[in-house]
């Protein structure tokens, strides 16, 4: 695998060279925290962050996205015809995405890119993007990526992986897209960095001190898990807000809404959350998930059981720890998974 050395002092100039061919996105600090946004001309990404407060999923899955526009004017020959709105799907580069968040996009892709359905909006943005990852040297106390199938130096979903070496980065070029971007930026100083990258990777993985236990989930009987007596206690504290789902890099649920004003309208999609009662409300008024216990159970069953069973690709969680840190009432997916795993364990021992 090709490794390129990038002096930190050269990074900004290299990114500037990209601007002709790419729109650049990267972490920027507001008053208190980092978040991904488009970088203005001359603006450098702020790479001194542990992870962003919200995940970068909005880069390919905006919280509110207009899909179609229409006119309700009967005299308009285009009236009552919904047309796609113009979108900018020109190449974009996402600089400094953490490996957990890039891995998360590959999990979300399983949902938006199937044999039966291909979500054009999500895929167009995803395919237009080149992801330049930033390896994680100092994982936090709520990071448990290594037990989710991800890791602080995980490469899945990335085109380039940057490894911080104090005064320079070692850039592992992982795909043709990554190669193209490095060339466009003028980064071409080959380096023999494999050993240094391995060393940093081993140290970062050792710095992750917390884990999620999932080994018995796949074998567990879904109905046994569904009916287990653990849910009342897990859900008691839950206030059914959308913090966990909105901060989660793998939560992908959305709602479609028409918004019309006068005789012009748009069809848009907005993030939705399985924590909200309205999420499952039928037009009849019947709600099959009518209590918070059912909704809380759904969130964890989806991430830790249904997804596991459907895709056979592990859990729908990359261990970024955002939901753990941000839950107002401290509901912790690691604890919930351990309880669910116990149910699986108990079933294994039954004759």
């Amino acid at each position, binding site marked *: 695998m090709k490794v390129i050395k990038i002096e930190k002092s050269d990074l900004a100039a290299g990114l500037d060279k990209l601007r002709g061919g790419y729109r650049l996105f990267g972490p920027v600090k*507001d*008053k*208190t*925290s980092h978040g991904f946004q488009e970088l203005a001309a001359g603006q450098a990404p702020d790479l001194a962050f542990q992870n962003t*407060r*919200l995940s970068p999923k909005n880069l390919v899955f905006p*919280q*509110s996205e207009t899909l179609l526009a229409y006119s309700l004017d009967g005299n308009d020959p285009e009236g009552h015809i919904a047309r796609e709105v113009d979108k900018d799907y020109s190449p974009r580069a996402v600089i400094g995405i953490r490996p957990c968040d890039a891995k998360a996009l590959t999990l979300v892709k399983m949902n938006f890119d199937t044999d039966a359905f291909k979500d054009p909006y999500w895929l167009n943005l995803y395919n237009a993007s080149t992801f330049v990852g930033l390896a994680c040297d*100092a994982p*936090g*106390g*709520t990071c448990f990526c290594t037990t989710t199938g991800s890791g602080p130096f995980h490469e899945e979903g990335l085109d380039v992986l940057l490894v911080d070496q104090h005064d320079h980065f070692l850039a592992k070029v992982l795909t043709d897209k990554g190669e193209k971007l490095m060339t466009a930026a003028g980064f071409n100083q080959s380096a023999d960095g494999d050993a240094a990258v391995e060393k940093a990777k081993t140290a970062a993985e050792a710095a992750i001190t917390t884990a999620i236990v999932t080994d018995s989930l796949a074998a567990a009987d879904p109905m046994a898990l569904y009916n287990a007596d653990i849910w009342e*206690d897990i859900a*008691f*504290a839950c*206030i*059914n*807000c*959308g*913090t966990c*789902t*909105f*901060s989660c890099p793998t939560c992908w649920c959305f*709602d479609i*809404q028409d*918004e019309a004003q006068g005789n012009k309208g748009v069809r*848009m999609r*907005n993030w939705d*959350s399985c924590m*909200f*009662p*309205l999420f499952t*409300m039928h037009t009849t008024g019947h709600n099959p998930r009518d209590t918070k216990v059912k909704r809380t159970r759904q969130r964890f069953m989806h991430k830790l059981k249904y997804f596991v069973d459907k895709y056979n690709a592990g859990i729908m969680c990359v261990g970024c720890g955002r939901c*753990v*840190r*941000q839950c*107002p*009432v*401290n*509901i*912790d997916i*690691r*604890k919930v998974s351990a309880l669910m795993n116990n149910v699986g364990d108990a079933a294994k021992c039954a004759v």
Partner: protein
Amino acid sequence: MSTYTENIQQIAQRLLKECRVEMVIGFRKGSMPLMNEPCVITQPEAVNQLVWDSNCGINLTHYLTNRKEKIGIVAKGCDSRNIVTHITENKIQREQLVIIGVPCLGMIDRRKINAMVEGDIQSVSETDDAVTVATRNGEQTFAKMDVLQQNCAVCVHRNPVIHDEMVADPVPEQNGVDQYADVAAIEAMTPDARWRFFDELLAPCIRCYACRNACPLCYCPTCFVDESKPQWVGKSQDPMDVRTFHFLRAYHCAGRCTDCGACERACPVGINMRLLTKKLNKDCLDLYGWEAGLSPDARPALDVYKANDPEDFIK
């Protein structure tokens, strides 16, 4: 405060053993520093889960709404005021409750501490007036008054206003605090500046509704933003819809809010939406001499007419 946990456990155990309650709602130790988790205890042998420290900021009244059981509930000053409001608004009956009062010295704002230390906090210890946090870079000690939630720093009702048990003697109330300095600063702005201020205040909102859902006042079976037949409010990130949610929610809390801080504490993006409710609290105090939740025998300001109510807003 060191004896609070032990006393809460003893009281809870006694109440459960004597069948005076079917459950006790309190806090158990959280999975990370500076966080505790609301919990319900139904067995006398499980009371050792219950804890108390300065990370019990969630307003437990939220968990009482429309419950039918006999309940023991751990309540600091603001929780007790919201319990009173719940009783007044018929969301729970006084006879159902055994209120375990906790004199409160204020709750820690974990974001404030996180912003002041380098690296992840690994452990925390506290005394009545100091908090010590350990990170991989070493230990740092803060005066508790410097790291309190904003609402706690200006709280004038730290002791429960209603209780059946007390876990300790009352603490001194704070005298001479300027409760509404932040509201006065906004009132002093020009309309344009104020509008910009609110725009910036609400710009980070992701509409997760954590503020509403943490609020003990927000118990409507269906919130106006969740109505779908008809739908009153758009669901997107349109600033007009975001504002509509926050402003209308604040008005729904007029004369009811105790400034417990649950909304701000719950917000994942750090919006101080208390500034909206506090303005209405200040108006209620200035116009009607009303503070919510002080007595179950008093009718709320917006629920009664008095001959001497101010009326100069009628033009």
